[in-house]
């Protein structure tokens, strides 16, 4: 028997430590007769911090839905933590595309985080055991939200709400975090702060993080790998290899230029926008 190096959460399931976090083989998704993307082959190793990039409507959210078991593949194979996506669900903390809580949502941030821990269990939403309360406080501390977690969530700022939502996604100690555009509609300082926060969580908790993003720049310093979804295909690799004029031009089959600004930002010029017909962004008010 081989001895595998496992972290503490894997103690009962040593088999999981050796397998890829996410694996796609020759995968394709067709929605309403339109192929979103096809021939996608992708491996994400445990502990990687991955940004999923690409134009609107290219199928980034579809990729997340496939990995969450909410969208079946038309062809190909998918495995998450070595099993079918549905079976891996309890190991995944998921942060849906941002929906702002307005002032009519009269619960507190701490209640939201608490629901991330036990919201799926039957019963009443009553104060729980002290172990659960400690875990909730711990998660709130991890995202730096202790100062406002007891305020009504609708009164928190966008950045504060996003930190509380991240705490709700990781409070159940998942092995992976999937985040759908967590930086969307945050101002630039908050984008940078949330990106840095995710990187800190990624390292401190040895967590695999898959993050859908519109703009790679707030994430460039943090991510190990980018997955680029565009023109019906999926490419992946380190950012400096994928976000280049050559790679993106080949992907789009048209001239795309990647410019490096003096402050280290990347600007992609000339990338064709994907058709918008299926985009479900902003469907939620």
């Amino acid at each position, binding site marked *: 028997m081989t001895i595998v190096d496992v972290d503490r959460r894997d103690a009962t399931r040593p088999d999981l430590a050796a397998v890829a976090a996410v694996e796609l083989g020759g995968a394709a998704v067709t929605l309403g007769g339109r192929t979103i993307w096809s021939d996608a082959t992708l491996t994400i190793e445990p502990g990687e911090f991955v940004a999923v990039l690409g134009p609107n409507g290219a199928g980034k959210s579809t990729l997340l839905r496939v990995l969450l078991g*909410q969208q079946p593949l038309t062809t190909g194979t998918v495995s998450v933590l070595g099993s079918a996506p549905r079976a891996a669900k309890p190991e995944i903390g998921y942060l849906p595309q941002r929906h702002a809580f307005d002032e009519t949502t009269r*619960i507190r941030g701490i209640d939201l985080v608490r*629901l991330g821990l036990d919201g799926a269990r039957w019963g009443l939403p009553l104060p729980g055991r002290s172990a659960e309360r400690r875990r909730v406080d711990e998660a709130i501390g991890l995202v730096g939200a202790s100062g406002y977690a007891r305020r009504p969530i609708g009164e928190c700022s966008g950045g504060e709400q996003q930190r509380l939502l991240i705490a709700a996604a990781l409070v159940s100690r998942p092995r992976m975090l999937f985040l759908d555009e967590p930086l969307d509609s945050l101002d630039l300082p908050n984008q940078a702060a949330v990106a840095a926060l995710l990187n800190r969580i990624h390292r401190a908790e040895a967590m695999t993080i898959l993050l859908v993003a519109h703009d790679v720049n707030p994430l460039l310093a943090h991510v190990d790998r980018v997955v680029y979804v565009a023109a019906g295909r999926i490419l992946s690799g380190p950012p400096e290899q994928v976000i280049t004029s050559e790679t993106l031009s080949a992907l789009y089959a048209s001239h795309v230029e990647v410019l490096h600004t003096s402050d280290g930002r990347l600007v992609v010029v000339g990338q064709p926008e994907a058709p918008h017909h299926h985009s479900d962004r902003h469907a939620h008010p």
Partner: protein
Amino acid sequence: MNPHLSLNPVTDYHQLVVYPFMVNALEAGTIVAVMASIVGWFMVLRRQTFAGHTLSLMSFPGASAAALVGVSLSLGYFSFCVVGALAIAAGSRTAGRRDFGQESAVIGTVQAAGLALGFLFLSLYGGILENLEELLFGSFLGITTTQVHTLAAITIGVLVFFLVAGRPLLYSTVDELAAASRGVPVRLLQVAFLVMLGLAVGATAQITGVLLVFALLVAPAAAAQQLTARIPLSLFLTVLFALAIIWVGLTLAYFSAYSLGFYVSTIAFALYLACRVSRTAIDRIGRRTTAAPAIA
């Protein structure tokens, strides 16, 4: 001897319970207040007040259908409220999630169809509904012991639903997509909640009348949620407010010439207004405190 309010609680209580119809009214009112306020708490948080209002109007086709077919009024109320709930649940989702825009359009359509059906049944029935005013504005005079038992049974059913499903329902209310990804059956809960809402509204309408369901369904929850965002306290205040509204309303209606519907609605509105005003005041004071220079 006509009852008159003596302001001596003991005497007044004895005057209140001297007639069996009044005991029935107090029992039915208490039962309905508990159920309606808890359902209403979730309804306000889920922003389904419009659905609640529409379901209360379903009592009108319910009552006229019951008169036409010759079954009990309660049966008509409950079956139409539940059917309306199912119709709203069936039409209000797009791409596997709640669609608020579509939901309100579907609710409006269901409301129009329900009222049209009610009018049709009334024409077919040929007569006039004798208790149309009671139907619209409520009454406490004619509540039978059977009605009290029916209300109690339905309330127990609704409360059991919340005992079992309260937490996942709250999760799917606050963050539906995250809840779904964690295995909460959000679709089933949405349908089940609307059915509970239909039952609660059907029960409440029998006391407050179809048009004044607001008094017990919306006002207590809306008022309590103004005051606090703490879930247990908020739920407790909601139930307390509903009980206060119905008890004070019944007492005043009993001792005076004006109708129950007027009292419960007015008390409910005043309560909501008071909570709204005090929250604004609390917020102002809070802002002034936080605006003061903080000690670093």
